[in-house]
Every structure is written in structure tokens, then in C-alpha cells.
């Protein structure tokens, strides 16, 4: 028993092929390029917590956005361009932890129930696709809860619960890795100035 098999395994019957076969018998669809080991390393705990607390996060976010807007003179003094780097750093850290943010630079969390759509393997902005498994997990990654099933659940808890029904524009890839917080703030400040002038 102790002598390893030819392909380095110690026990027969648990080769990746065997594992796939077993999963297939149970009815789970198993993509070819995902090994069990790789999938088990992932954890979705925090991301799912955020969706469960979408209402709180929505409330928090709106206050946070106001604070950021109030800081507009600061950003202006520093220069939006120079603020970009540190703010992006913080934004990536915070949103990366809470939402597994992928820094698309055009945040739609408030319309997607606080479930980041860029974590969908198809990066759908208007999901879910037709491949969602019966247990609510993703077609491509069988162990990940479908981002869009989560989004729907999260949106049901929010005040702006129907924002998820808006058709989202395609992602502007040229905005990747930039701060969405600063962009939204700059736009809001511009809109405010416009309103004040007229």
C-alpha cells in the first residue's frame, strides 16, 4: 500500500479522472481545467457575508459617498490625478476584501446586490446566464455560488431593489485599474457645480 503508484499517487482510485467521474455520477458538471485542489483553496465567506448584509452596506456606502464628495476641495487641491494612486490602493484593498473586487473601474455594486459581477467567469454585467446549476452554483466553477444568484438575493434586501432591472452598458476596458470612487466623486461634484450655476 505504501509504495506509490506509477503516477505518484499513494492510493488507487483518487486520480483526477476518477474524481471527475465520481462528480459526474453525482450529477455535478465538472469543467476540465479546474482541479479539486485548486477549487478547495478558494473561499467565498466574506463575499457571501457582504451579500447577506447588502442593506447595511448600501446605507454605509451612501454616507461614504457623501463624505467623499464633501472632501471634493481636498481632492481638487491635491489634484484628482495625484490622488488616483493612493486612493486606488485603498479602494483595491477594501473592496478586494469585502467583494473580491476586480477593479473594473466602473463600480455597479449598488445595482447588483453588492455581489461583484466581475467575479462571474463570464464577467456578465446583465446576468445570470442560463447555465446556473440547480443548486445555485456557477456553471463554470461548480463550487462557487453563482455571482448573479447572489446578486438577485442581495438586491431583494436593498432599498433600491429594482436597480438590478436596469440594462447595464458593456464594460469600458480602458477604465480598468482606476478608482471608481474618485470618478464618481468628480462626476457628482461637476453635476453639483452645474446645478449651482444654473
Amino acid at each position: 500500500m505504501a509504495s506509490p503508484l506509477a503516477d505518484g499517487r499513494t492510493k488507487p482510485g483518487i486520480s483526477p479522472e476518477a474524481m471527475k467521474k465520481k462528480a459526474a455520477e453525482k450529477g455535478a458538471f465538472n469543467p476540465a481545467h479546474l482541479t479539486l485542489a485548486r477549487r478547495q483553496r478558494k473561499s467565498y465567506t466574506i463575499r457571501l457575508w457582504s451579500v447577506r448584509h447588502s442593506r447595511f452596506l448600501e446605507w454605509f456606502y451612501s454616507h461614504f459617498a457623501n463624505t467623499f464628495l464633501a472632501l471634493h476641495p481636498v481632492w481638487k487641491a491635491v489634484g484628482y490625478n495625484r490622488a488616483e494612486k493612493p486612493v486606488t490602493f485603498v479602494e483595491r484593498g477594501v473592496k478586494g476584501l469585502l467583494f473580491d473586487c476586480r477593479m473594473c473601474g466602473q463600480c455597479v455594486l449598488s445595482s447588483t446586490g453588492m455581489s461583484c459581477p466581475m467575479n462571474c467567469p463570464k464577467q456578465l454585467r446583465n446576468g445570470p446566464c442560463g447555465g446556473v446549476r440547480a443548486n445555485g452554483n456557477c456553471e463554470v466553477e461548480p463550487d462557487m455560488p453563482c455571482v448573479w444568484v447572489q446578486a438577485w438575493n442581495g438586491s431583494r434586501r436593498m432599498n433600491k431593489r429594482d436597480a438590478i432591472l436596469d440594462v447595464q452598458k458593456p464594460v469600458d476596458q480602458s477604465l480598468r485599474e482606476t478608482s471608481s470612487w474618485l470618478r464618481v466623486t468628480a462626476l457628482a461634484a461637476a453635476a453639483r457645480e452645474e446645478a449651482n450655476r444654473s
Partner: protein
Amino acid sequence: MTSKSGNRPPQSDENPLGIDLPLDPLPGHSSLGRLERVLRRGEFAVTAELNPPDSANAADVFERAAVFDGWVDAINAVDASGANAHMSSVGICALLTRMGYAPVMQISCRDRNRIAIQGDVLGAAAMGVANILCLTGDGVQAGDQPGAKPVFDLDSMSLLETIRTMRDDGKFLSGRKLTSSPSVFLGAAINPFAPPFDFRPHRLAKKIEAGAQFVQSQYCFDVPMFAEYMKRVRDMGLHEKCYIMCGVGPLASAKTARWIRSNVPGIHIPDHVIKRLEGAENQKAEGKRICVDIINEVKEIEGVSGIHVMAYRQEEYVAEIVSESDALKGRKPWKREMRADDRMVAERFEDMLSAENGQTPQEIVEGRTG
């Protein structure tokens, strides 16, 4: 029409000047195609899926299309379905339109970005493609080349919106003007059989808002579930804004059914269907019967405007399924026939080959004309 229409019986929805030519525009129609005409007339439409060949031979496409002759209103040209490489949907459409067929060109977002897709839409419309179906597409993991780079630049929703903008506003996504816009009837796919179930009708509403004019559903094996979905769709009034076609298809055996259930994403096959297949002596025939039964039930659901038959590798049964379920309700869809001039040439050749009177071709011609 003189010699062209010749001894060809008149067919509905056909340009009398040539089968490959577009029809006259009708008021309120967005395409020049037959499928839109059939649906807008309120007739029960039938479409089928062509199994894309793994070959570079045009005859393969024609052969596969010929089995549908006279049974379907449009033929879906799939775009690398299941993420397996096949002849492209643009290529298949080029061949089909050449022969006068009405293809539904599927575009999936998996393989091409927005630049390529907008170009393909223009090219397809120029070839006479009147129907385009916008899909997100299966993930690359589902196919034979899981190492491919998934593109997913657009999703089905933004793709619909993009093509609608091109058609109605005559503009690319970037805002640049088109000199002539593609007249296409826009379709999308729905899957009422996957969670989140309460979101699915809303998602159809979103697709309609984005531009969908007809939708084809995923394989329906669970009629009560589909009926439930349709009820909610009717409550939202969506069946009046969009033509809903139900996807159906025969299962070859209980074993294939099991395999599909565990390997093809998004297809829901209830246990009782598999039991019924298992219990049958001839599973293939039973699979066909189940399909006919499902069509008969689905036909009666209010708001269903047609069926979409996906008989993968059993295309030869499509005609039987359609006739046994009487889905066409006595109607005869367009059928490819020899053109009048083709027929004339054929007759001449026959005369020459079976020259009973021993005349040479020259003599025949001289005798005829002189």
C-alpha cells in the same frame, strides 16, 4: 413573371424574382425575412437547429439543411455551441442564404469582442441574414478546448442593445455612423429551468428592453415548470411584446439523457422523463414520442408562438416530429425547389442524354430553334 417563375408553384413569403432575393419590406417589420412575417401573422412558427459540420465542404451544410425542407420556417446556425469548434455561424449563413434558406444567425459573446461582432453583423445582413440570435455562450470549460481564452467582451443583453442601435439609430457602439443599417429581426435565448426562478421573467423583460423581438428557450422537458414561467410572463404582459418559442428535442436514450444532465450546463431533465425512457423497449422511438407529447402540451400554453426543435444528431427526425405533433397546423413553410431556369437546363440535358431518335445535341438544338 415570365420564364423565371415558370412551372414553379407559387409559395408564400418568397420573392417572385428569385428565391435568394430579399422580400419586400412590410410596414412595422424590422427585417425582410420570412420568420418575422410568419410570427407577425400569428402563425405557429417552427425553427430547427442545424448541426454545424466539422468540415470545409459546402455540400455538408446543404445536405443537413435539405432534411428540414418544407418543415421549418428558419434554420438556426449555431455559433460554436457548447464551446466546441465547428464551421462558423457566419459561414453557414453565407451558404444558407445563397440557397434561399432563412437562417437565424447565432452570435455568442464567448469568442469575439465588440469590434468583431459588429463587423459580422454588417456582413451577415449584407448576405441576406434576416434574423440574429444574441447569446452569452457557454463557458470555454464546456467544450473540447478548455484552454481557450474566454472573451465575453459583451453579454447577451449589451449585444442585443448594440445591434438594435446599429439597426434603429444607424450607429456603431462608438457612435460612428453607418451608411446603411442592418435590417434584422432580433432574438435572444431564455432558460426558464435554471435558478433564480423568480428573476427569470424579469430577465426576459430586460432582454425585451434591450431589443429582443423573439426568444427561443432552452430544451423544455418539464412542461409544468415552463407553464409556470409562462404564467408569470403573461402576468407581466411580456408575451405581447415578444414572440416566445419553446425549445424542444428528442432524447436518444436514457443514457444520453443522464449524460446531458450531468455534462451540459443549463439543461433540466426531470426524473420521470428518464424513467419513461428506461421503461421503453425502443428508447429512441420513445424519445421521439416524448418530444411530440411535449410539443402538444406546449402548443396549448397561451403566449407560446412557436417551437424551436433541437434534434442534435437526430435531424432526420425533425420532419416526423413536426408532422406528428401537427405543429404547423396544416401550414406549409417555404420549401426549396429547383428554380425555373435550373429545371429548364435539366430538361434539356435529359433530352440530350436519352436521345432516342439518335439526333446529336446540335441537331436537337437546331431542330428546336429552327
